[in-house]
């Protein structure tokens, strides 16, 4: 029987809820379709792969609220609801839909784990009761609803205590209270963060080992443990902020089985149907353990476990939710064993978090119970040393110099791992470091090995044995060259002479016990090669974009996956390389073969050589991939698209301005400065404010508007060498617009223009935007003409993003990104034009006539909006500026701009109706209260302040800490007011759905 299933996605990327739910959701939707279900998806994150019609039949980019979902349910009348794939957001919505009787009213069956079980698992008090019933130990704790109760508890058990608000994601609003003085603020925040105004206060068990199990269970009661994982960081650091190793390394079989058995007991009692994550704390000096928490759904950890083992948890969880038992489902990796088996690993996996502190130099880098990482990388090798090093190489970031190493150990920060290496290099004893950090000596030994090898490289001749040893331990040729003082070419040559080559091995879920049909590969220097090159007439390598970070989110995974699909359609054999375990691109079912590796010249070239690749695609993996283009071209790699001379001519401002002059295209002129002194000198020629932008950065990192010489000096102080040349531009007021286009060297296809709501000066990733734009025909024509001139001048082939500034009548070019941009998925989905597919066909020399593609017809307007994870970074002022700060984006469609805006702001109260819900600095129309007094009001919700003084900044931070929505640009607030003109909204699916939808 064909069933119509409603799937709730997780919405925009936020800290604590990132691309892993696109991976799980995509797998889940495809599994539903495989079983003949019709899939109706609600997810307002347009940058995802799951919101594509290949994945779901009907897609709604609509608000994730009960109100909006109820409307969609009334319209679509689905038979069943699947909420276990959309993270905490979807799970909370399922609970609310049940509570409000919507499921009952529309006779909607909830697939998988029941609401009752979800509540038992998620509600701290119910969970604690359950643990007592099952005689499972939990740390001493109490559920409190007032600050006084928290004080009494702390009095009783002693400090430190941990605060965990109920029903929140990523530890939102929680933290550790070390001293009585800290208690009030943290508990108050926690109570506010919890939708049910409930906080559990808990005795701290910081220092215990933190161990996780990923469990699957079917309705017949069969339980399996897909994977267990051990945190490098002991209890005290959120698992999302911890370095994690799989499988566990320091647990004896007895320990391992004790916790596994406990996990089964809990999951069985909860009657989980699908996936469930169980977290434990284990004493280092006894077998005492505590259950920390469970997540009765797929999660970040389950995505990691899937990639670490090859076991597709989300897919199996979906099938189990549909009623299958695990022994009925085949394991797709082996095609021989069944889903009711536990993966055996013959390699080791390291996950390393990616934090946003490179963007927020002012942020407090301390880690605690509140997650702050935006993404993560994973690495596979046969030694732990190798896996650690590959993970760090995958981070794609410069590790700052460690100034005061103990500072990072006293209270853990994101730099603790590097500070430990630093201390070991200085000869600090392992025991002292262990005492301070409680990190298991086993892990510290691994780090010590690395430091010892560094020393050898520094002091000893680079002979065969040493070279072999350091390659096995994951040192890159570049690092070896650096440490041993010889050139990288020489290292490479010696390796070849000694026959020390990178080999490739298989991830097969079964440690080679059975023959496997998998295409999931990793590289190692420990052992022999077992991977033969794929057969195929034309072979393409697609570079991924690495970890999710501010400025480079899931939208780049979208482009990479679309590129793979397009190439496959044209008969290419596709090979993916990426290192982000949260993504669809690293699902081994996406490309014909997956290399789970750092995106690095040395590794890419070895893959290209091994596989004999015909074309390498660097334009679908964000800045990470395109930054490698020059190096790869220098190595003679066959790159798709224009040569790096063209890329350089577009990215190098001097060359670019020369071209624009030739083409008679106006631009905002700037000066390229190669040193700090040059910059200071050049600044004298300008009138402040000046826009100061570093080169080769992601998301406007380090980009600032400076008002005077002092500010300029300060900002140059923070820039490092990699960021030069720095460009100084006149900061010009105006409206920003951008286009995404595909060109074939001569002609171009440009679907429509994106118009930003906030004025220029706000990073495009942080602005709200309208698509299609409401610009007049004249301006549009000018923009298209400029695009055409640029494309034909450079004979540009492929996909490109151009940003413009409109000031008065004039159109200025701001910058060109010769790659797939952040807005590609939005344009593709709203215009229903497969931009990436067109670009790939041009690049892969498929016959495609760009001039014959008709302009899209729009019957809806889309509004894209940024989402800030301010709850995770409460000490950061989220004032909009040229440095991007948002972690994700959402999108809503409407018949009118007002309707789309109404949907965007539908979670906010109506400021005209609800008194005191808005507070506008310097305007008492909405609230005449004093700021501090207003903050405490139950109605308080929206704070508007676009000032730039330190007091303004302080107030915005204060408002964020109190859970307010903060608008730091007048234009955003005006958009909000405009949205209030629309009284009600009607859900509307994305165009191009497979079935002619129920459109009202």
């Amino acid at each position: 029987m064909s069933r119509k299933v409603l799937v709730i996605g997780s919405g925009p990327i936020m800290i604590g809820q990132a691309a892993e739910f696109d991976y799980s959701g995509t797998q889940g939707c495809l599994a539903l379709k495989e079983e003949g279900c019709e899939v109706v998806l609600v997810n307002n994150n347009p940058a995802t792969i799951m919101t594509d019609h290949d994945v779901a039949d009907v897609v709604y980019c609509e608000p994730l609220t009960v109100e909006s979902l109820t409307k969609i349910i009334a319209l679509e009348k689905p038979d069943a609801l699947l909420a276990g794939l959309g993270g905490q957001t979807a799970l909370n919505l399922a609970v609310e839909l049940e509570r409000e009787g919507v499921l009952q009213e529309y006779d909607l069956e909830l697939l998988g784990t029941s609401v009752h079980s979800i509540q038992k698992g998620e509600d701290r008090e119910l969970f604690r009761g359950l643990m007592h019933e099952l005689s499972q130990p939990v740390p001493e704790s109490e559920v409190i609803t007032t600050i006084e109760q928290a004080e009494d508890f702390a009095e009783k058990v002693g400090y430190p205590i941990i605060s965990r608000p109920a029903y929140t994601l990523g530890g939102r609003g929680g933290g550790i209270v070390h001293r009585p003085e800290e208690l009030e603020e943290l508990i108050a925040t926690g109570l506010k963060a919890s939708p049910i105004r409930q906080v559990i206060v808990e005795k701290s068990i910081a220092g215990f080992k933190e161990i996780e199990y990923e469990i699957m269970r079917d309705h017949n009661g069969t339980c399996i443990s897909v994977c267990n994982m051990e945190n490098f960081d002991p209890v005290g650091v959120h698992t999302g902020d911890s370095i994690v190793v799989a499988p566990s390394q320091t647990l004896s079989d007895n320990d391992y089985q004790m916790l596994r058995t406990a996990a089964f007991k809990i999951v069985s009692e909860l009657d989980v149907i699908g996936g469930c994550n169980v977290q434990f704390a284990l004493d280092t000096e006894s077998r005492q353990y505590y259950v920390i928490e469970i997540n009765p759904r797929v999660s970040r950890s389950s995505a990691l476990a899937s990639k670490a083992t090859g076991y597709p948890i989300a897919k199996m969880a979906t099938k189990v939710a549909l009623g299958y038992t695990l022994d009925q489902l085949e394991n797709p990796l082996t095609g021989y064993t069944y889903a009711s088996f536990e993966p055996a690993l013959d390699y080791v996996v390291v996950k390393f978090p990616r934090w946003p502190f490179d963007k927020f130099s002012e942020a407090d880098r301390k880690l605690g119970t509140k997650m702050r990482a935006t993404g993560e990388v994973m690495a596979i090798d046969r030694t732990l040393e190798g896996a650690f090093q590959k993970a760090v190489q995958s981070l794609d970031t410069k590790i700052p110099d460690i100034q005061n190493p103990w500072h990072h150990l006293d209270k853990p920060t994101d730099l603790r791992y590097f500070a430990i290496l630093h201390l070991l290099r200085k000869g600090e004893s392992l025991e002292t470091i262990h005492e301070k950090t409680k990190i298991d000596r086993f892990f510290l030994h691994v780090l010590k090995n690395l430091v010892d090898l560094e020393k050898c490289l520094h002091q000893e001749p680079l002979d065969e044995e040493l070279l072999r040893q350091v390659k096995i331990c994951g040192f890159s040729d570049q690092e070896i060259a650096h440490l041993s003082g010889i050139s990288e070419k020489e290292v490479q040559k010696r390796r070849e002479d000694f026959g020390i080559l990178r080999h490739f091995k298989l991830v097969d879920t079964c440690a080679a016990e059975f023959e496997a049909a998998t295409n999931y590969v990793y590289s190692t220097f420990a052992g022999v090669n077992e991977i033969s090159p794929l057969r195929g007439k034309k072979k393409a390598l697609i570079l991924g974009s690495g970890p999710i970070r501010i400025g480079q989110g899931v939208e780049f995974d979208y482009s990479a996956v679309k590129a793979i699909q397009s190439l496959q359609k044209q008969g290419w054999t596709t090979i993916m390389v990426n290192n982000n375990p949260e993504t669809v691109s690293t699902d081994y079912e996406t490309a014909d073969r997956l290399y789970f590796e750092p995106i690095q010249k040395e590794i890419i070239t070895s893959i290209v050589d091994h596989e004999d690749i015909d074309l390498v695609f660097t334009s679908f993996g964000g800045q990470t991939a395109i930054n490698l283009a020059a190096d790869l071209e220098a190595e003679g790699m066959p790159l798709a698209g224009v040569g790096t001379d063209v890329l350089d001519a577009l990215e190098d401002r001097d060359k670019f301005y020369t071209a624009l002059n030739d083409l008679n295209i106006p631009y905002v002129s700037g000066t390229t400065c190669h040193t700090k002194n040059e910059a200071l000198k050049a600044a004298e020629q300008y009138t402040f404010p000046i826009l100061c932008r570093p080169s080769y950065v992601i998301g406007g990192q380090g980009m600032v508007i400076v008002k005077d010489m002092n500010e300029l000096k300060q900002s140059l102080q923070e820039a490092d060498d990699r960021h030069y040349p720095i460009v100084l531009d006149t900061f010009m007021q105006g409206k920003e617009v951008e286009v995404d286009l595909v060109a074939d060297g001569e002609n171009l296809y440009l679907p429509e223009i994106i118009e930003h709501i906030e004025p220029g000066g706000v990073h495009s990733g942080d602005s709200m935007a309208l698509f299609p734009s409401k610009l007049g025909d004249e301006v549009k024509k000018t923009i298209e003409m400029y695009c055409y001139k640029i494309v034909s001048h450079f004979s540009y082939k492929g996909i490109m993003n151009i940003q413009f500034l409109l000031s008065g009548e004039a159109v200025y070019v701001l910058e060109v990104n010769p790659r797939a941009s952040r807005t590609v998925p939005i344009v593709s989905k709203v215009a229903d034009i497969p931009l990436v597919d067109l670009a790939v066909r041009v690049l892969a020399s498929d016959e495609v006539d760009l001039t014959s593609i008709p302009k899209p017809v729009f019957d809806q307007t889309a509004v894209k909006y940024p989402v800030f994870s301010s709850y995770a970074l409460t000490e950061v002022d989220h004032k909009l500026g040229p440095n991007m700060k948002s972690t994700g984006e959402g999108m809503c469609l409407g018949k009118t701009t007002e309707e789309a805006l109404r949907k965007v702001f539908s979670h906010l109260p109506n400021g005209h109706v609800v008194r005191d819900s808005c507070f506008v600095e310097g305007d008492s129309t909405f609230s005449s209260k004093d700021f501090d007094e207003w903050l405490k009001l139950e109605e308080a919700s929206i704070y508007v302040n676009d000032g730039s003084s330190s007091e303004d900044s302080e107030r915005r931070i204060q408002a964020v800490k109190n859970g307010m929505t903060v608008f730091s640009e007048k234009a955003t607030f005006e958009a909000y007011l405009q949205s209030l003109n629309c009284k009600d909204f009607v859900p509307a699916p994305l165009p191009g759905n497979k079935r002619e939808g129920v459109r009202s």
Partner: protein
Amino acid sequence: MKGYLCLQDGTTFEGKASQHFDRNVQGEVVFFTGMTGYQEVLTDPSYKGQIVVFTYPLIGNYGVNNEDGESQEIQVSGVIMYQCAEIPSHFQARKSLGAFLNEQNIPYMTEVDTREVTKAIRAEGTQQAALSLETDYLFQPTKTHQIEQVSGEKIDTYGEEGMHVILIDFGWKKSILNALLERGVRVSVLPFSKIEMLDALQPDAIVLSNGPGDPKDTVDVLPLLKKALEKFPAFGICMGHQVIALAFGGDTTKLTFGHRGANHPVKDVVSGKVFLSSQNHNYVVKEDSLNGTPLVPRFYNVNDGSIEGLMHDTKLIMSAQFHPEAHPGPKDAEWLFDHFLTLVKNKGVKTHVS
């Protein structure tokens, strides 16, 4: 120093030889895919004389302790690993794995591509292999009757009170004894060569232990054993399971490369449930050989459909090819001990639902 693992089919693998590599060691080569439990494996008498390959590359991380040994000494003849942790980290650890092996003169090799060895065994089946300093090792005729090397001589009794269970020793693991003792019974360990004493001991039940090698090595005691099985409630584990099948006229055969590890799914036809089991066996009961015997399959392996356990159609006799006592591996089948002992207590109740 370089060492070699030479397989009988001529394949050799190079690695780093341990301290006690001065003599050649020959034995059947098997692989273990569990990621923990090396101490239990090495001391399990069922592995007597074998060369064990650990597929997981990081072995020895938590050292060796005084608690987790399955017998007094190391039973395997040699060990193949990728890495053997020099400095273990665990509060129970008393020594490193390398020191433990060296103390008992067990040669081992590290830096071996264990995945490749596993694939060779997978392709060619379980075979003889040798640890040697040379690549041209000359294979000796193989030893049989490993059971006799591990089964004890005398009867030992453990526990003070409760039902009296005789554990028939084909090379018993400590965990089977512990599993029984934890459930409040008195256990006497009886060497399989002394089965004739069962009548005099008059136990409430018998448990047939695990053991190494070919179950048909027990052929001499099968008639006696059958008589005992007809008198006493019985539970056979691994070798014990195979011996029960043989005693009632069933047959066993050798698998290509055996079942070893901690992740073998088993389906219980009575409840329909699947659970994960710890396994270590080369031989298996042939399903069609059970025709005409009073034995019925109760458990099947989900992966290859082989028989994983039996029950008698009228008597309280049950068996498991896997290891419900775990150690190493999952404890998902521990309930079988409770189940068996409860049935023994409520004598006369049939063991199956037909």
